[in-house]
């Protein structure tokens, strides 16, 4: 329908805008602060000594992963239950899910490294860790469902239903794992971030981490969601093109 933009124009290339450039800069600054405080300025823990430094990336990552899940579920509900069925909600759900998978993977990896360091084991079957792993797998499944094809609305409807079923599933999984681990008398929390006594500087570093990760999350989701707009538009474009090609063919004299 329209002429594609000039390749060489960098300012309109991709999904950046003035707002995201500002946001991105702030995020990078936040990360720099986090690294400085996490690795250098914050003190070692009394019991865990240096290994507590992993907490400053592990905990913010976990919080944002859970936030991403809530956003996906909320956006899915808004898509499904509002009469307009606006695809913008669907794209937000998809973008947040993908970013959430990334953060959740990081949570699991750093959690394993921290556990190995302070407790000697990569994994414990405690409810929160296991639920995080399940959330990760559920998300991966959700992203796979988004790729099943069909029209944008079909994708949106399907995915929204799957996301909301996930909201049903996760508490059930969490509760059943908790019940299960109680059998093994694991009421004492066997994970590193359970017994960190935090002083002021440690708390500050954690807050720095949270702010930095939140900025990262927002920046990533905005870009991913815009990329989804582009994907949908490109697909629609391709479809229109194919249709008009067909019509042009059919209109040819002596054509089939």
């Amino acid at each position, binding site marked *: 329908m329209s002429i594609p933009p000039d390749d060489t124009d960098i300012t309109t290339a991709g999904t950046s805008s003035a707002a995201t450039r500002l946001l991105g800069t702030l995020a990078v600054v936040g990360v720099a602060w986090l690294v400085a405080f996490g690795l250098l300025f914050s003190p070692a823990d009394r019991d865990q000594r240096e290994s507590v430094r992993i907490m400053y990336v592990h905990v913010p990552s976990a919080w944002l992963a859970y936030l991403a899940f809530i956003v996906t579920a909320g956006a899915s509900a808004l898509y*499904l239950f509002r009469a307009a069925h606006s695809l913008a909600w669907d794209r937000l759900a998809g973008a947040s899910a993908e970013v959430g998978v990334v953060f959740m993977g990081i949570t699991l990896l750093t959690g394993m490294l921290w556990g190995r360091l302070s407790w000697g084991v990569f994994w414990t079957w405690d409810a929160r860790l296991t639920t995080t792993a*399940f959330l990760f*797998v*559920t998300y*991966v*499944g959700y992203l*796979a*469902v988004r790729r*099943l*094809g*069909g029209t944008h609305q*079909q994708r949106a*409807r*399907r995915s*929204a*239903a*799957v996301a*909301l*079923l996930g909201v*049903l*599933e996760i508490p*059930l*999984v969490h*509760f*059943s*794992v908790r*019940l*299960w681990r109680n*059998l093994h008398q694991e009421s004492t929390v066997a994970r590193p971030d359970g017994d960190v006594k935090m002083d002021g500087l440690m708390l500050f570093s954690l807050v720095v981490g949270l702010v930095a990760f939140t900025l990262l999350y927002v920046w990533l989701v905005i870009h991913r969601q815009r990329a989804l707009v582009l994907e949908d538009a490109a697909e629609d474009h391709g479809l229109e093109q194919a249709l008009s090609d067909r019509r042009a063919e059919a209109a040819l004299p002596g054509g089939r």
Partner: protein
Amino acid sequence: MAPDHSAAGAISPWRLAWLIALKDLRIEARSRVVVYQVLPFAVIVMVMFGFALDDDGIAQRVAPGLIWLATLFSLLVVVQRSFAVEAADGALDALRVAGVDAVSIFLGKALAMAAQLVVLELVLFVTAVVLYGPRVRPGGLALLVVTWVLATIGLALVGTLYGGLTAGFTGRETLLPLLVLPVVAPVLIGATRAVESALGTTGAAVSEGWPWIGLLTVFAGAFGVGGSLAFGPLIDE
């Protein structure tokens, strides 16, 4: 068979679900796919467990877990079969176009699936007793039966739900295990713990099994309702 008509001339959704369930069971009665293919598969899985574990003591101790694991694997196959019979002639679409409520289809197919699973699990239980040797104690029989029924309902509901989504298109069926297994984890945990209490394989008392029945009930209820709502969006093409 004469459908019962309400005053408006329409068939009630419950009646429709029942008819759909009967249809599925009739197909199975004629084709015997589950009986001749899935049951032997399930038994083979139990034998394979024996090979892998290589220790009679351990196998006896974990027998309840093995039964439910074999059930889960068989569930995946049964689900695919349940929707394969629809896909061949676009039967699901035909039902929808005819105005059949998605909820009826969901509950009807889940009911038929549950009936087949219940039989399969009975065979698996007998196989476990034969291969691994756990003993049934009389006090645990009620717990055993209740677990058996409740867990099966939960599995059938979840299977039907995601089966509807993944059925019929190439490149989709492989998604079924990834979607189903995480969701039925609570059933695996709850049913295994309950059966362990019923049999006493881990030294658990029968009374310790009943809280798990609560979990299984909540699970079945949650997916009965949630699945009924979600099935429509999932199968609409």
